[in-house]
């Protein structure tokens, strides 16, 4: 499973969670749902921490 991450305007990170039923590839979802002009990365879901205690402190790297 994959996720798409991109930096938010306030210095944080947004994580796009794909819908399996949508029929689009992860690249197509990125092209559609990442805000225009934002750089992004496609990462494994295992790379996203499951402990969300400090979610708002996460940064894009």
């Amino acid at each position, binding site marked *: 499973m994959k996720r*798409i991450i991109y930096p938010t305007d306030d210095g944080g990170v947004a994580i796009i969670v794909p819908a399996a039923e949508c029929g*689009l590839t992860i690249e197509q979802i990125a092209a559609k749902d990442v805000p225009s002009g934002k750089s992004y990365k496609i990462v494994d879901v295992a790379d996203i921490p499951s402990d969300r205690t400090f979610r708002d402190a996460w940064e894009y790297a």
Partner: protein
Amino acid sequence: MANIITAGNSTNGGTAITTDTSGTLNIVTGSGSGATAISVDASQATVFAAGVSGTTGSFSGNMSFNSGYGSAAVAYGCRAWVNFNGTGTVAIRGSGNVTSITDNGTGEYTVNFTSAITDANYATVLGQERTRASSDAGFVGSYSQSTTSVRINTRNIAGALIDFEGVDVAVFR
């Protein structure tokens, strides 16, 4: 046996009509396989066969039906829906007309539609799922409705943003 209308194809060389006295009408698509797509019996009950393309067709007019409502009335559709868990590894459990959700931070999400909604004046119906009766109660709100997405946030009863165990979103228009 039944009255059968078979769409024209390379096997039958054109539309074929077979008749009998059963009072049932079967409409067969042009695949040549003989599979019935739609059947209408003498009581006018209509059956769409499972798994045939006819069950995924479109209807451009208003669709009315009774189905326990009390009378036939126009039915308005859910144009998009998603059920996702908001704690641990955020993931979509099920969805329709949704390409993704964006996790923007604690209790902050964007639902991204596959096909745009006709305008932004739709009703967003929200729900909180809890795995235990003792889980935190809270509120779900929507904002920034557009034809392509809607943002939602989840808060506890004190008004602080928190992650819910599960969130339901449905869009009606």
